[in-house]
């Protein structure tokens, strides 16, 4: 490769993307083998517990999608996977709410972590939509009842024609494609932002200066 060719390669979008990625998330920060001492607390485990529950949700959901409503309503194995799906969703929300409380009370948006907080909050909202469309996709009397109740509320805010809860095909597609995709993208972005900025430290005690609100983890950009 000549010098001119090497210069052109450095200006290419792939090289630029690689440089930006390596600068924001070098391997030792993307996959760290140690964490600050304050992370050794049970209150810090609920984020990863939420992700673990999400993995079970998606895994059991893939099986349900492969086999279909008749299978999950009639066969014993289908009922089992249906139960695994719903209970892992329960745990997913349980852990996510505790994670949310923990991060709210330690003001986890400190130290340039606003986007981390926002991606987490939006993930929560999108997850509620995914759970709602999941209830609508059950193909039983409960889903019919929920849909008939929800349509009035959604019509009253003017989105009923666009988001029709009585249309099973539309709700099922939202539930198995669009919303899970949104959640996964948001969760990946959330975790990468946590890696980039470090895990938020606890709030300083009153006797400490108020300026010590950022993580003591050294960062390349000095933040």
């Amino acid at each position, binding site marked *: 490769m000549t010098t001119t060719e090497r210069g052109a390669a450095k200006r290419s979008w792939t090289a630029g993307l690689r440089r930006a990625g390596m600068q924001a998330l070098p391997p030792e920060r993307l996959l760290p083998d140690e964490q600050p001492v304050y992370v*050794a*607390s*049970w*209150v810090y*485990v*609920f984020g990863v517990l939420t992700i673990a529950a999400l993995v079970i949700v998606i895994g059991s959901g893939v099986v349900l999608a492969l086999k279909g409503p008749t299978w999950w*309503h*009639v066969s*014993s194995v289908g*009922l*089992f996977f249906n*139960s695994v799906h719903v209970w892992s969703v*329960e745990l997913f929300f*349980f852990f996510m*709410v*505790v994670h949310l*409380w*923990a991060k709210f009370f330690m003001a986890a948006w400190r130290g340039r972590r606003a986007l981390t907080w926002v991606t987490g909050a939006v993930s929560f909202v999108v997850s509620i939509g995914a759970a709602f469309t999941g209830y609508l996709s059950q193909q039983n009397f409960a889903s019919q009842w929920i849909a008939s109740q929800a349509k009035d509320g959604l019509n009253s805010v003017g989105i009923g024609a666009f988001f029709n809860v009585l249309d099973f095909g539309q709700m099922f597609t939202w539930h198995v494609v669009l919303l899970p995709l949104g959640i996964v993208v948001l969760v990946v972005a959330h975790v990468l932002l946590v890696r980039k900025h470090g895990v938020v430290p606890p709030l300083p005690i009153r006797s400490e200066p108020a300026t010590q609100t950022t993580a003591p983890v050294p960062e390349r950009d000095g933040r």
Partner: protein
Amino acid sequence: MMVGTFDTILAVGLNGKTYYIHWGWFQISAANLVVIVMMVLVFVLAIVVPFPGRRR
């Protein structure tokens, strides 16, 4: 027949009567209240229970 199978798999029947708790204008199902109380309990325990290996 299906209800019986469903109950067996779940171990806890979810097809019974739903219980609600009222405080004046406020109403909540017992199931939702139990979940909220459990979340608060787990949150408090996560703060006060020491993490294994913390003093290493």
